[in-house]
């Protein structure tokens, strides 16, 4: 018996042309179906309807413009950018440290640390948010940590903790690629631990750190549970997602659903850009991120 396998004769078969066509049609249909909400959102954000009829009648940029002109909307966008930005810095510092300790240091209890850093994935955001509310509004009543005084710090904290695992995992994956001998050879040649870290380890994992930061940022921008629960406690502190939810429930002062759609378009744009950057940095062909 001859085997057809091997480097020059692979076992894969090329499909017939009509099968190929079928596959393409099926996949396009599937992707279109999956993208319907996004397509709808974009249409909603960029067009107007006549009073009757199912199709949009005119193209308009007024709702997208609102993102920059309406102070309420702009405030929500800036708040989200600020919270996510600060949260990303915290995630990187804490997440990288945890990843480094777990991967490179032999200290007791590092397994527990690893678990603790991963657990937030499994905690529903709503539980975290309500827990925060009950604890901080009681124990830290009247201070900056009291969400009734200012929810900003708690939102940053919630974002940092909920999205920490993504950063930790990403940096951890990078560190696993840095063989122990690369650090040992540096120390052997006279570099102390910190020089070794900054000149050898950091440059080798910087793409993973950036990738982790992008992931953390995107997920923070689109965080819902904590944002909706805590975000509305002070009017000038609302994040994007809280604002969208208010529009959807018809409770926002700036009422049009189309403005909500414009905000969604902004979030999608942030995510797509982030994915593109992240893909470029890691030079991977497909991303595991979902839009």
């Amino acid at each position, binding site marked *: 018996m001859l085997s057809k396998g091997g480097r020059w004769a692979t076992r894969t078969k090329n499909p017939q042309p009509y099968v190929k066509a079928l596959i393409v049609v099926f996949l396009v249909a599937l992707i279109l179906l999956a993208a319907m909400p996004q397509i709808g959102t974009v249409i909603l954000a960029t067009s107007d309807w006549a009073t009757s009829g199912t199709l949009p009648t005119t193209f308009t940029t007024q709702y997208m413009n609102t993102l920059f002109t309406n102070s309420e909307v702009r405030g929500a966008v800036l708040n989200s950018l600020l919270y996510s930005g600060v949260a990303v810095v915290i995630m990187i510092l804490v997440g990288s440290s945890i990843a480094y300790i777990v991967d490179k240091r032999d200290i007791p209890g590092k397994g527990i640390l690893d678990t603790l850093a991963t657990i937030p994935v499994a905690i529903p955001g709503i539980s975290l948010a309500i827990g925060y509310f009950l604890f901080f509004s009681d124990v830290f009543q009247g201070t900056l940590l009291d969400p009734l005084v200012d929810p900003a710090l708690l939102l940053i904290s919630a974002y940092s903790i909920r999205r920490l695992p993504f950063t930790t995992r990403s940096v951890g994956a990078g560190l696993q690629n840095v*063989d122990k*001998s690369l650090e*040992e050879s*540096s120390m052997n040649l006279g570099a102390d631990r910190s020089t070794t870290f900054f000149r050898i380890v950091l440059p080798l994992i910087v793409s993973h750190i950036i990738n982790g930061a992008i992931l953390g940022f995107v997920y923070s921008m689109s965080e819902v549970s904590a944002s909706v629960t805590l975000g509305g406690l002070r009017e000038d502190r609302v994040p994007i997602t809280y604002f969208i939810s208010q529009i959807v429930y018809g409770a926002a002062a700036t009422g049009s659903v189309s403005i909500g759609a414009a905000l969604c378009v902004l979030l999608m744009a942030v995510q797509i850009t982030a994915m593109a950057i992240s893909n470029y940095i890691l030079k991977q062909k497909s991303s595991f991120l979902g839009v």
Partner: protein
Amino acid sequence: MVKVELKNVTKRFGEVIASDSVNLVINDGEFFTFLGPSGCGKTTTMRMIAGLEFPSEGKVYYDDKDVTSLPSFKRNTGMVFQNYALWPHMKVSENVAYGLEVRKVPKEEIAERVEKVLDLVGLSGMGDRFPNQLSGGQQQRVALARVLVIEPDILLLDEPLSNLDAKLRVEMREEIKDIQRKLGITTIYVTHDQEEAMAISDRIAIQNYGKIRQVGTPQEIYNKPDNLFIATFIGKGALLEGNVTSIGENISVDIGEGVLEGHNTGNKSLEEGDHAAVVLRPENFFLKALDEPYNVLDGLIEWSSFIGAVTEVKILIGDESLLIDAPAGREYVSGESLKVYIPKAKTVILPWMELD
């Protein structure tokens, strides 16, 4: 250049004893090799000398200075790792310059020394390449240049040739030996390849199960093995098992097919009636009677293979097969009988020990 001394050095990883009560002196300027089967603790012992591992017990001295707990970056040793451990994000010249940069050597001097050392290892003009643009042999040279440039007190080489092909391995080992001779640097080498160890070393320490079993020059270890493990680990050779029948100027061992006389090179003495092994090297068999005292064995030719300078012949003595190097100038027909003569002076007799 320094002398290295290990006093009672033991390293445990949990239950496992990697190095077991190692006592050694490695002389200034010496090419010293740790040789042993994989997992014997030779790399761990070297890593303790480099300061990348710290002994559970015992002391490490450089020139009588206790460095047992001194971190690696304060020891001024240069270690070449088995996988080379070149930094992939740095060019060859940056890799080589690194050790000088962390020592705060002036820029102009760094450039000069990097160029000089790249020249020494035969890589001049390659400074702008990245490690992944180099062949295995070239990467090996970069790894060597990177440690030589800092002018280390001790050069440590951890199986540096194991990733190279056979021909390059021989070339590189000669080059390493050459450079070492030129620089006169104390060099510690780890390998599991006994031929490599013999070819390159001034002295060899053979380690097994964490313990140093014998230290000596290649000749001493080959010709005067301390025990049966060494005798079988180093070089080719055949073992014949028997009992000591008499102790005199020579020791006589009855192997069933006759009595062989030889001498005990081991570090344990033999008594009459003891279980012993006769170790015979292939090159010590002759096909005609000798002028010096000799042993004779009658064998049956199993097979022969012509390998150039000699013909390897396998002969059957009783139910033991022996490999002998026979002259190439004649035919060896399987099934025919062959009388072999072994000088008594080259017949090594050792106390029996169980080998695994």
